[in-house]
């Protein structure tokens, strides 16, 4: 789960890391009122879960009330596309914070390195810019040190990293302390990524986190009630519906609705449909051991997307039982109707029982195929014909 900048900064403040004070606002009126309280100049920053906000025009410095009003109006409601074409993401709120007096801009991050199975600290004196470019063009300017999982990460260890990154001498101790606290945030809040760019030094030589990108491990939310509450709601109506029903669903652009059991098989199903010339409308992993009710829910979510012209169920049962899947399909057909063509490929545990249930129900619009490839070809054909 990704946190918005201001949520990340609140987490930093909780752990004693200096951040500029500010307020979150969802309307222009509230943003202007916040700016008036904070004073000028102040920064008005789009709160979206994507990088590259500054380049997209989502971060502005207001010198007075008129500018605050203008910038808040420009930013709230704008759509931001990520640097790699992600999104667009609609800006629902802005973070208004006091202007900072920047003497130095650094970069600091703590990330879970899954390859090395350790937390990795990265520090650079070239902050405030695209850190991927720094890493590519002058790798020596980015200091990367793994944190020993068997030892305490203390200020002495952090000082070595900060010194290696050649940060200003008079900021060394304060920056080392921030790094220790960032590692503490990672451990205590179950953050798998914390990136501060820029980490600034003010002219008073105070070290302040001017940005915050934080990812919290969704599996650990049970022990972070406060974070579980800020878990953002999905923008997309199908994604929101799926979330409420406890399904793993990702919306895509095509017209072939897809359900499979297991993330790997589901991804593979998308690939095979694409290879057959089709365009998947979604990723939906029904999970292991799906019962009939989950299938009804899944079909409801898939069919609520108006772009969908045909649906493919690709099931290879391990824990999942074919008879449960078949019962779900029959129940769903009775409850919500089945107006779109549905191609079903059912294999694995209890698939024969499942196929028998489907044969007996004799549903219109239901097509059975024996293999994954045949099922993919069939659904692509049907989706083309019905659109």
């Amino acid at each position, binding site marked *: 789960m*990704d946190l918005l900048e201001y949520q990340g900064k609140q987490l930093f403040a909780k752990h004693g890391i200096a951040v500029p004070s500010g307020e979150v606002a969802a309307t222009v009126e509230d943003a202007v009122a916040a700016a008036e309280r904070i004073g000028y100049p102040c920064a008005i920053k789009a709160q979206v*879960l*994507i*990088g590259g906000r500054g380049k997209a025009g989502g971060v502005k410095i207001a010198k007075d009330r008129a500018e605050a009003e203008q910038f808040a109006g420009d930013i709230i409601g704008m759509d931001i596309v*990520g*640097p*790699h074409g*992600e999104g667009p993401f609609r800006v629902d709120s802005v973070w208004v914070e006091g202007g900072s007096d920047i003497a130095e801009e650094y970069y600091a*991050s703590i*990330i*879970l*390195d*899954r*390859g090395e*199975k350790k937390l*990795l600290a*990265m520090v650079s004196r070239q902050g405030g810019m*695209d*850190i*991927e470019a720094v*890493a590519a063009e002058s790798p020596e300017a*980015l200091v*990367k040190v793994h944190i020993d*999982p*068997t030892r305490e990460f203390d200020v002495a260890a952090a000082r070595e990293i900060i010194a290696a990154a050649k940060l200003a001498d008079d900021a060394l101790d304060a920056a080392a302390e921030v790094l220790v606290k960032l590692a503490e945030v*990672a*451990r205590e809040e*179950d953050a*798998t*990524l914390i*990136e501060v760019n820029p980490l600034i030094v003010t002219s008073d030589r105070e070290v302040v986190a001017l940005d915050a*990108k934080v*990812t919290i*491990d969704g*599996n*650990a939310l*049970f*022990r972070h009630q406060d974070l579980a509450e800020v878990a953002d709601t999905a923008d997309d109506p199908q994604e929101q519906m799926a979330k409420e029903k406890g399904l793993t669903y990702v919306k*895509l652009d095509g017209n072939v609705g897809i359900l499979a059991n*297991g*993330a*790997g*098989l589901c*991804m*593979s199903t*998308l*690939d*095979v449909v*694409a*290879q057959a010339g089709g365009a998947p409308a979604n*990723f939906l992993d029904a999970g*292991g051991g799906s019962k009939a009710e989950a299938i009804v829910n899944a079909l409801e979510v898939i069919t609520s997307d108006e772009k969908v012209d045909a649906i493919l169920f690709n099931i*290879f*049962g*391990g824990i999942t039982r074919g008879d449960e899947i078949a019962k779900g399909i029959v129940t769903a057909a009775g409850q919500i109707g089945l107006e779109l063509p549905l191609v079903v490929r059912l*294999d*694995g*545990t209890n698939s024969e029982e499942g196929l028998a249930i489907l044969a007996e129900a004799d549903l219109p619009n239901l097509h059975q195929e024996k293999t*994954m*490839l045949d099922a993919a070809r069939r659904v692509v054909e049907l989706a083309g014909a019905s659109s």
Partner: protein
Amino acid sequence: MSIIIDKSTKLAVSGLTGREGSFHGLRNKAYGTDLVAGVTPGKGGQDVEGTPVFDTIKEAVEEAGANTSMIFVPARFAAPAIDEAIESGVETVIAITEGIPVLDMLSTYWKAREAGVRLIGPNCPGVLSPGKANVGIIPAQFFDPGPIGVVSKSGTLTYQIGNELKQAGTGNSSIVGIGGDPIVGSDFIDILKLYEADPDTELIVMVGEIGGDAEERAAEFIAAEVTKPVVAYIAGFTAPPGKQMGHAGAIISGSSGTAAAKKEALEAKGVRVGESPTETAAIAVEVLRSL
């Protein structure tokens, strides 16, 4: 032969008294796995259809001779259960549980390494050595004994490929589901090493998916250390590009983690990569017949 589990496996199941644990534990026993104990704190002295239950894994080791532990306990209690297994004296721990916080696994991973205990998973379907033993949730009926070793991040995708191999008249030395979590006890390289050393494995099928750089690392290892042919499949070519928050992820792995990047890395090292599970199985059979 086979890897990780075989006829000498003596299994203790943590969570055997639970609904899922008993269903799969007893299924493993019915397959022929030597299930010697269940472990549930506070339920020592009971039994599950004749299998004695102990309070601790250590007791299961000392009193029932367990050498392999399967973890089937709920996510929030699972990491301590794995830690307990690591310290109990078993050689192998297979963790099926899904949803364990990743930072818990970080310390558990290093405990297993230091203790020299082989950890498989978590969030994995387990290990099957056809005709010998099954520890986990892999439906054994789709696999026959044979010369192909399978190692996979995904459960259902493995069943799909295994079933196609069976229909093509071949089978498997072992099937290892390593799990798709960011931190798993054994990665592709650990299992490739075992298959390379296993005399009954003639060919290896590796099934990966998007995310991380385990496949890229495996490609380097295959080129340097593996003499047996490896055939791969990668899922997720059409997966949507994930929202990229920070940039730190791309910097450390040096890889975009996409399916295309993984395929390219593997092919650059001479590994054939199938376009679909069906084609992957077909390539594996073709390569096997040419040996």
